[in-house]
């Protein structure tokens, strides 16, 4: 294989990996905050895609302009999911992990039903966008414009998330709540409020990813499933709760997927990603960057 085509594969894997990282980091954030795995995460992604789609149908504005709206909308969806469902799942006295898994699973199926009710099971796509179908040439590499912008958005949001977590009171409250839920109540932090904001933030991040994905991917009620599975792999690989881990693992997954797609039939490329997950957790049972 020539060096240019290798670089080409590397670049497309890297861009897709950045998007995977953005999809996964919200999941990781929520887990780190309150030890809950959100099995409706893929559906948050799907809701964001439909949000962009319906706004586009109504306003005919470009999806890039609509992305912030979808992101904000998903913040609301996430906070609402916490206040309406997850908050009650946290109160379970028996079968705690089972309750969390099935409450969020139920939510996932419910959201799929709502999507199908309003949009039918048909595949939708957004056409005639500024970025869709265009490529940008950088140093001899041809990069698809939506993925390139998606990668940039991902990097910007990761930097923003890092600053938010490390420099603001909100970030400190999140960090403190994650360290010790009982103690934060004593210093006047409302645990429920922090959790609701955490869920909002987690959903907003996957919302941004969904908005980008809507530009170049089909939109249908079950679209979240495969991406959610990759997100679980990314989060587990990077370590539940680790933001940097999600970024690194997302990129690794994107690269592995891109390079194996060259070697084996594309329909098998996710096998490589899943095998990577298994290999890593068997060697390091808490992921690459997980706290042991």
């Amino acid at each position, binding site marked *: 294989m020539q060096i240019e085509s290798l670089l080409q594969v590397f670049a497309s894997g890297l861009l897709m990996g950045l998007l995977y990282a953005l999809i996964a980091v919200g999941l990781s954030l929520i*887990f780190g905050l309150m030890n809950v*795995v959100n099995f409706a995460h893929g559906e948050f992604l799907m809701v964001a895609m439909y949000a962009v789609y319906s706004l586009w149908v109504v306003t005919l504005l470009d999806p890039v302009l609509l992305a912030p709206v979808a992101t904000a909308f998903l913040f609301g969806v996430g906070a609402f999911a916490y206040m309406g*469902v997850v908050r*009650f*799942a946290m109160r*379970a*006295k*028996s*079968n*705690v*992990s*089972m*309750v969390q*898994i*099935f*409450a969020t*699973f*139920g*939510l*996932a*199926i*419910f*959201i*799929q*039903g*709502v*999507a*199908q*009710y309003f949009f*039918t*099971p048909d595949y939708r796509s957004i056409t005639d966008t500024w970025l869709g179908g265009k490529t940008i040439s950088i140093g001899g590499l041809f990069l698809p414009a939506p993925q390139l912008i998606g990668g940039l958005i991902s990097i910007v949001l990761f930097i923003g998330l890092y600053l938010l977590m490390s420099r603001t009171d909100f970030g400190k409250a999140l960090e403190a709540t994650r360290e010790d839920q009982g103690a934060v109540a004593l210093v006047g932090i409302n645990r429920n409020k922090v959790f609701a904001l955490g869920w909002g933030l987690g959903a907003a991040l996957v919302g941004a990813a969904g908005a980008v994905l809507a530009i170049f991917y089909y939109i249908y*009620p079950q679209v979240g*499933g495969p991406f959610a*599975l990759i997100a*679980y*792999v990314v989060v*587990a690989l990077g370590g*539940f709760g680790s933001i940097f881990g999600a970024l690194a693992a997302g990129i690794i997954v994107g690269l592995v997927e891109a390079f194996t797609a060259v070697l084996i*039939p594309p*329909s*098998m490329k*996710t*096998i490589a990603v*899943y*095998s990577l*997950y*298994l290999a890593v*957790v*068997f060697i390091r*049972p*808490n*992921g690459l960057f997980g706290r042991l």
Partner: protein
Amino acid sequence: MNETMTMAAASAAPTQRAAGARRAQLPILALVCAVTALLPLVMQDVYLQNVLILTLMYAALSQSWNILAGYCGQISLGHALYFGVGAYAASFLFAGYGITPWLGLLVGAVLSAGLALVLGYVCFGLKGHYFAIATMVIAEIGLLLVHNSELFGAALGIHWPLGADSWSSMQFARTKLPYIYLALALFVLTWLATYAIEGSRWGFWWRAIKDDPEAAESLGVEVFRSKMAAAAVSAFFTAAGGAFYAAYVAYVDPESVMSFRFSLLFALPAVLGGIGTLWGPAVGALILIPITELTRSYVGGSGSGLDLIIYGGLIMIVALVKPEGLLSLVRPGGAKA
């Protein structure tokens, strides 16, 4: 953790009372069998008979899942893999070599139990979410491998050849009655296996592991071997259910027997009825499967998604309102005995 303490207390309940309550279960099973066996006489509608078959089948499959997840506490989200192994083993041997599905069922169940031992050997070191996601990922790898394997018909799957109705080929085109009895037999066998395990040393070990693996280990429970045994038994019966399903629909393809949806469908009845209980999966299936089938036929046929809304809503409500399962309503505090 609160959970651990209450459950440990429940396990320590007087054994005599437990033994008495245990013996009372067998007449209940006999009654359930009698009612189910006579039901087709008054219920001749083919559609309703199909619902009955599926209800019995999911009760059995959920019970199989319950053996590993409910009793031993290892939450598997990948049981579709074992279901698929059973379904494909029976279909492959029957369609390819004319081998009776009875043998196919046995081959699939044994293969599946072996596979569960291999996977358990590598996976039981993982904790909590890492374990659950590993099971999900492994099942998905299985699905992709079958999907890409020409030997098993790839995406098209395997069609069962048409032939005369017979017990040896498990094919009955004209009547659903034999399938009702087969599904009932599957349910009864799974139930009896669970019943036997519940009263044995294994049952006590498994519950101890579910409550607190470290404490169980320190008390001399062989944690790893217990988990392996639970996984093998659970996979065995799940695959038997898969072989039955393949014979019933006379067709398998990767999506229709190995998709993640099935892993979920096996878990939900148990969660609804009460996990780690003898009757939980059956009660859950009795409620969930008719609702699923009826909503799918009457409101889901149009693809409106209303069936999913109802279904998802129901799961959320049960998980949130009655996390111990519906059985705890009739037997307060006794559901875990």
